[in-house]
C-alpha cells in the first residue's frame, strides 16, 4: 500500500512493503544484496591472496617459468570456456526473467557443463605438474613457494567453481519445479560471474607471467 506525501512522492506505508525489499535504498530483493555483499567479501579474500602472490612473484629472483605452449593453450581454452559459461548463465537469467523455464534450465545446464569442463582441464594440468615433481613446498625448477602459491590459488578457485556447479544444478532443478523464482536464478548468476571474474586475474598472473618464453 502506498501513500502520497506532501511533495507528491509515493512512500510504502505498510511494514510488509518496506521490508519485502525491492524499494529503498537499493531496489533489489534482499537475497541479491546478500549475494553482492558475499561477493565483495570473497573478492577481498582472493585479492589478499592474489596481491601476496603477485608481490612474491615479482620480488623473487628465481621464480620458475615452467608453462610450455601446451599449458598456456590449455589455460587459454579454460579461460574461453569460463567466459562462454558466463554468457550461458546470462542467457539463463534472461530466460528466467521471461519465465521460459525449460530454456532457463537448459542454459543453466550448459553453464554447468562449462564449469565441469573447466575443472577437468584444470585437474589434468594439476596432475601433469604433480607428475613433474611439483608439490606444495618443493619443485624441481626454482623457488619453493611456486607450488604452494599455484595450488592454493588455483585450488581455492576450483573449489569455488565446483561449488558453483552444484549451486547452479540446485537452482536449475528448483526453478523448473517452480520452487525457486527468477530472482534466485539471477543471484546464482551473480555468483558464477564472480567465479569467472577471479579467473580473469588468476590466468594472467599465474600462467602468463610464468610462461616459458625462451
Amino acid at each position: 500500500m502506498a501513500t502520497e506525501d506532501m511533495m507528491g512522492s509515493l512512500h510504502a506505508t505498510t511494514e510488509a512493503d518496506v521490508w519485502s525489499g525491492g524499494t529503498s535504498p537499493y531496489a533489489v530483493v534482499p537475497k541479491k544484496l546478500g549475494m553482492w555483499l558475499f561477493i565483495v567479501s570473497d573478492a577481498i579474500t582472493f585479492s589478499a591472496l592474489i596481491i601476496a602472490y603477485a608481490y612474491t612473484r615479482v620480488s623473487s629472483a628465481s621464480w620458475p617459468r615452467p608453462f610450455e605452449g601446451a599449458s598456456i593453450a590449455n589455460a587459454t581454452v579454460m579461460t574461453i570456456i569460463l567466459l562462454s559459461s558466463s554468457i550461458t548463465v546470462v542467457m539463463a537469467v534472461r530466460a528466467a526473467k521471461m519465465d521460459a523455464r525449460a530454456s532457463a534450465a537448459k542454459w543453466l545446464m550448459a553453464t554447468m557443463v562449462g564449469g565441469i569442463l573447466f575443472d577437468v582441464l584444470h585437474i589434468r594440468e594439476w596432475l601433469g605438474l604433480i607428475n613433474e615433481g611439483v608439490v606444495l613446498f618443493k619443485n624441481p625448477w626454482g623457488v619453493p613457494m611456486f607450488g604452494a602459491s599455484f595450488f592454493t590459488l588455483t585450488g581455492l578457485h576450483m573449489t569455488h567453481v565446483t561449488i558453483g556447479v552444484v549451486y547452479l544444478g540446485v537452482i536449475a532443478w528448483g526453478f523448473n519445479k517452480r520452487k525457486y523464482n527468477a530472482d534466485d536464478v539471477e543471484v546464482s548468476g551473480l555468483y558464477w560471474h564472480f567465479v569467472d571474474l577471479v579467473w580473469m586475474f588468476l590466468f594472467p598472473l599465474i600462467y602468463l607471467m610464468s610462461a616459458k618464453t625462451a
Partner: protein
Amino acid sequence: MANDVVHAHVEPKKPFMIVWGFLLAFTGIEVILAYQQLDLRVMLVILMSLSIVKAALIISYFMHLRYERPSLVWTLMPALVFVIVMMFVVFPDGVRLFYMRPK
C-alpha cells in the same frame, strides 16, 4: 514485489555478445603480450590493467551493475577498491618488517 514482475519486453542478446567478444579479444591480447620480451613489472602492470578492464566489463554488463541503482554501486565498489588499495599499501610493509624485525 517489484522484481517478481515479468519483464514485458524481451531483453536483447546483442549487447551481451558484444561484451563477450571484447572479453575474448582482451584475453587474446594478454596471451600475445605474455610472449613479448618485457620487463616483469611492466608486464604485471599491463596485464593487471587489462584484467581490471575485463572485470569492469563483467561487473557492469553481465552482473548488471550498470543498470542497478547508483546507491548499490556506491555501497559495494568503493569499499572493495579501498580494501584492495589498503592491502597494496600495507602488505609490502609487512614483508619489510619481516626482514628488519629484531632477532
